[in-house]
């Protein structure tokens, strides 16, 4: 961010509205304040003791003037209020088609999570992080020209997710969900600040938002482009749901990474070229994965027994299939789970030990 321009970067529609309102107030208030200054200065020079006889008139006031400077400021102030309501109303009501990103504040980092499961940790003091968290440090990637809804909560104390370039700010309150939304209009990198004091490393709970082109965003979201700071760990996402299913349906007992597994390991399967029994090969895309689950005998991978049962829609619904595909898509080298009995709770609700269901108002 370069401070040379007097007006800070305007990187969202809301920022533009803010600037209009800000400068409307600044100019009108400046005019009023400036004229009072001018009057003060004029009176102080004109009516200084050396310039007067020392005798003063007995002026007690004027009802007309009092009325004027009661009513006129009131109307000006009400116009500020009205303008403020318009901007605030807009800031409070995201469009229906907005992409939802979940942000959890935690001393002292932000955990952001995309609808497709990608997770990124923003800011914080690396010394206070676990190894996994440290690896996930990165930027919040947003597509340009597309509304994004951020749902915010906190795991411990109150934080505040503020993005100056978007002129946006919202507290992260434990036990509650709050919302902001952006419509980024400019490419670039912008600050994220924690604006609500939250303890020792409050000032390190900062990071960057990176606004990129839609295509670049899609590529990154698919995992095609490795942007820094995004592992395909997928807690709470569709892919995470798929992971649960993967365990629940006992896929893991054959598709395991142990040496005596009875089926191919699925790590890095997505997008790769799969040699089939009897010659030929297929690219492992969504269609291939779905086909292999619904009717596994159609295309058996070269070198493996054809032992996999078929799963029809009563066993794996369409939605579950999406989840499984998303999971398999996200499965990278070394990520096949090896234990079936434990997996962490989804990262949705605040994880206070005694927390009950969040406020359902």
């Amino acid at each position, binding site marked *: 961010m370069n401070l040379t321009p007097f007006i800070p970067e305007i990187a969202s529609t809301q920022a533009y509205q803010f600037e209009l309102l800000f400068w409307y107030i600044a100019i009108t208030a400046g005019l009023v304040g400036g004229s009072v200054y001018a009057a003060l200065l004029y009176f102080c020079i004109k009516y200084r003791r050396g310039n007067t006889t020392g005798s003063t008139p007995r002026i007690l006031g004027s009802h007309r003037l009092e009325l004027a400077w009661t009513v006129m400021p009131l109307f000006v102030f009400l116009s500020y209020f009205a303008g403020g309501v318009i901007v605030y109303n807009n800031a*409070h*009501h*995201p469009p229906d088609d907005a992409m939802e990103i979940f942000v959890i504040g935690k001393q002292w980092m932000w955990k952001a999570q995309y609808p497709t499961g990608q997770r990124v940790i923003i800011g914080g003091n690396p010394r206070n992080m676990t190894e996994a968290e440290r690896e996930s440090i990165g930027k919040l990637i947003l597509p340009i020209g597309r509304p994004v*809804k951020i749902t915010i909560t906190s795991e411990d104390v109150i934080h505040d997710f503020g993005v100056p370039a978007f002129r946006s700010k919202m507290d992260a309150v434990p036990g509650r969900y709050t*919302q902001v939304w952006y419509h980024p209009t400019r490419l670039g990198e912008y600050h994220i600040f924690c604006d609500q004091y939250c303890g020792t490393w409050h000032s390190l709970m900062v990071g960057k938002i990176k606004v990129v082109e839609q295509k670049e965003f899609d590529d990154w979201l698919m995992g095609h482009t490795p942007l820094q700071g995004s592992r395909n760990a997928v807690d709470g996402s569709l892919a995470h749901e798929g992971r649960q299913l993967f365990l629940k349906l006992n896929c893991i007992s054959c598709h395991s990474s142990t040496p005596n597994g009875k089926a191919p390991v699925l790590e890095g399967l997505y997008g790769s070229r799969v040699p089939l029994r009897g010659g030929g090969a297929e690219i492992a895309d969504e269609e291939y994965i779905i086909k292999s689950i619904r009717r596994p005998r159609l295309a058996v991978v070269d070198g493996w027994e054809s032992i996999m049962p078929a799963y029809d829609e009563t066993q794996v619904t369409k939605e579950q299939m999406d989840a499984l595909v998303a999971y398999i898509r996200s499965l990278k080298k070394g990520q096949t789970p090896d234990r079936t009995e434990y997996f962490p709770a989804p990262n949705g609700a605040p994880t206070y030990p005694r927390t009950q269901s969040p406020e359902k*108002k």
Partner: protein
Amino acid sequence: MAEPNTATANDDPHGIRQDVDNPATLILVFVVLIGLALANIGISGAMGPTKLTLPLQLAIASVQAGLVAYYFMHLRQGDKVVILTALSSLFWMGILFVLFLADYLTRHMVVG
């Protein structure tokens, strides 16, 4: 405010004895207070938690508090400033309640 100069009795130069409470009044108020307290408990038990229970309970308690203030706390003899003070404390508590409610009753309406 007591007006000391209106007292004429020699042994009561400040008009202090003039406005002593009538014990009969006090005991009557006391009986009413106890009656209301028991009524409150009885009615609440009989009604159980319904929508009307709380307003009714609070209405009875307010009548009780009003009696205490008016008779026991001598609001009936109090000067205007005292009454103003009592009322303004209630008014300010009203501000607190009304503006709290403005948030708490409408918070769930913000759905996005």
